[in-house]
């Protein structure tokens, strides 16, 4: 099966490239840039970094534009030295939307594709800027050799700035049709935005009170491709917050992702929703691979290790992460003192979770070693165990805060993208912008995307392995009962 391909870049890289490609005289132009591959389970993304401006004699502008072999050689040598790939970008000044390749465009890219792959070990990536609306199109020259070299058309090109701007390839990824169930939604932001949002591949990490609610509301909004990742089973102590889960789910030892998928499907408005589930942990190598196939991630987990992995990939692999959480303070007598919930988008250009003090890297090793679940360790260090207070009546506010960040980051109402870190204080009922900035010397906010060369923070996750083993080791009568329930669920959905 051919791997899917895509391209992602920061708003800063986009601006630097547009500076080179958009000319005052309206002629076409070109430039080169370096990229790093980010390899997911089913998709490879080229993470475009800084451009390499051409010297005067390295391209000829004559209405159209012609690249010289010298420029390609210089770019490929630099890419090779920096263990990067090479991108050949050119502009179609009046073009709008995803651009088809003309014969000369194809011939030019094909003529250098073998050489570039030979020199860099990575496929040449071709990109076209539609100057009319600043849309992008792209392809990876990743199969065939010699005269048979050929491109794989990308599914999309994503620019991560104050908003997530996506140009879609309608041929590989057509917009799902809006339907009568989505009339009110489409009327809120228009058919074009709906066609964009509905196609985005969104991953929800954590299917607890917040993650479950986020997933079903995304499904209700018409998103087609939603993945929910969690390895936990539903337990009795979850029932006061996991809206939709029942005592019956506990007795059948259902996983949280099963319940989340069931609830998301019940609320989905797309004609053919694809709600996938994964019982992996984002801390496991395969969990990370799964995550890299997505355009956007919701972080609905509070443990430091998964948060550290997500914090990293927002910068190294340009997958924006919408993050939030709740903290409930209690008095010594157990009564409530206050509650605060926060939300922010973790992405290049915004401070990371460490700089916003939403992640303590000193706790990651503890979590990775399973010590946060180890009673003998906790007994000796009671202060190091994260507090677990949560209330269903308030967790919905965290969901709302995350989804509001999502809408601002995706739709930019009034032209304003993500608002930065926000905090709501329950006792005073005040919403405030948090004045966090990236700290000098922050080692997590990589200046250039690293992709597959990122430092690997994943590893074997004992808690995930144990939960999967518990889910798998159920008596036959429970399996039979699950199948029966699933059948009833499917029949109900078919008739809804």
């Amino acid at each position, binding site marked *: 099966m051919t791997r899917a391909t895509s391209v992602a870049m920061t708003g800063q890289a986009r601006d630097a490239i547009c500076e080179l490609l958009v000319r005052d005289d309206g002629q076409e132009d070109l430039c080169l840039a370096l990229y790093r591959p980010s390899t997911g389970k089913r998709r490879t993304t080229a993470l475009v970094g800084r451009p390499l401006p051409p010297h005067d004699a390295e391209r000829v502008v004559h209405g159209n534009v012609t690249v010289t072999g010298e420029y390609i050689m210089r770019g490929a040598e630099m890419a090779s030295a920096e263990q990067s790939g090479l991108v050949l970008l050119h502009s179609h000044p009046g073009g709008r939307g995803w651009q088809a390749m003309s014969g000369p465009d194809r011939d030019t890219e094909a003529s250098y594709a073998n050489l570039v792959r030979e020199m860099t070990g990575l496929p040449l990536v071709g990109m076209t800027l539609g100057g009319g609306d600043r849309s992008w199109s792209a392809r990876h020259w990743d199969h065939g050799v010699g005269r048979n070299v050929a491109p794989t058309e990308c599914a999309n090109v994503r620019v991560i700035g104050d908003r997530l701007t996506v140009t879609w390839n309608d041929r590989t990824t057509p917009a799902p049709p809006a339907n009568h169930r989505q009339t009110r939604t489409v009327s809120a932001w228009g058919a074009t935005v709906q066609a964009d949002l509905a196609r985005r591949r969104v991953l929800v990490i954590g299917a607890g009170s917040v993650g479950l609610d986020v997933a079903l509301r995304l499904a209700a909004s018409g998103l087609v491709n939603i993945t929910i990742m969690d390895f936990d089973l539903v337990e009795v102590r979850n029932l006061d917050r996991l809206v939709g889960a029942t005592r019956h789910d506990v007795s059948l030892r259902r996983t949280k992702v099963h319940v989340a998928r069931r609830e998301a499907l019940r609320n989905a408005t797309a004609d053919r929703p694809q709600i996938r589930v994964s019982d992996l942990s984002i801390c496991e190598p395969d969990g990370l691979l799964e995550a890299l196939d997505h355009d956007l991630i919701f972080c609905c987990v509070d443990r430091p290790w998964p948060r*550290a992995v997500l914090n990293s990939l927002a910068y190294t692999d340009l997958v924006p992460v919408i993050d939030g959480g709740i903290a409930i303070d209690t008095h010594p007598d157990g009564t409530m003192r206050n509650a605060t919930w926060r939300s922010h988008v973790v992405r290049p250009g915004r401070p990371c979770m460490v*700089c916003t003090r939403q992640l303590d890297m000193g706790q990651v090793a*503890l979590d990775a070693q399973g010590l946060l679940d180890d009673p003998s360790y906790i007994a000796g260090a009671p202060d190091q165990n994260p507090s677990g207070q949560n209330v269903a009546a308030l967790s919905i506010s965290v969901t709302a805060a995350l989804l509001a960040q999502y809408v601002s980051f995706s739709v930019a109402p009034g032209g304003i993208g993500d608002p930065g870190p926000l905090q709501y204080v329950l006792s005073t009922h005040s919403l405030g912008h948090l004045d966090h900035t990236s700290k000098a010397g922050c*080692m997590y906010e990589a200046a250039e995307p690293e992709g597959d060369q990122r430092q690997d923070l994943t590893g074997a996750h004992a808690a995930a392995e144990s939960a999967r083993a518990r889910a798998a080791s159920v008596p036959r009568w429970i399996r039979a009962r699950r199948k029966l329930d699933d059948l009833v669920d499917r029949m109900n959905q078919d008739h809804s």
Partner: protein
Amino acid sequence: MVGHEVFVEHMTRLGLHPRVEAGLVIYDLEPVDGARAGTVVDTAVAVDELGRWPQVPPHWIHLPGDVTLARTNSRPSTRPGWTMHSRQIAGWGVDDPGVAWASHVRGVLGEARS
């Protein structure tokens, strides 16, 4: 380079003479406070804990058994006669990782009673 090799490089840069022995990176440190102030103390970190260095700092500080700390959550070290102490480092991720780690361990050694 893998994590513990980067750690060794960082400790070398600080002149702490790191060496890898039986699954530990052992290095010299001279505390400025506590019972061991002014004397060089061998301290160590497990190689297994350094896989994600420098992004993720280790948790356990391995010390010779005769170094006693006032308040500690400890377990036997993999090195005979040594003890590993649970200590969480605060504010990780901004400063030079080698310097931050050495300061952290110096602070812990400053608590030494013997």
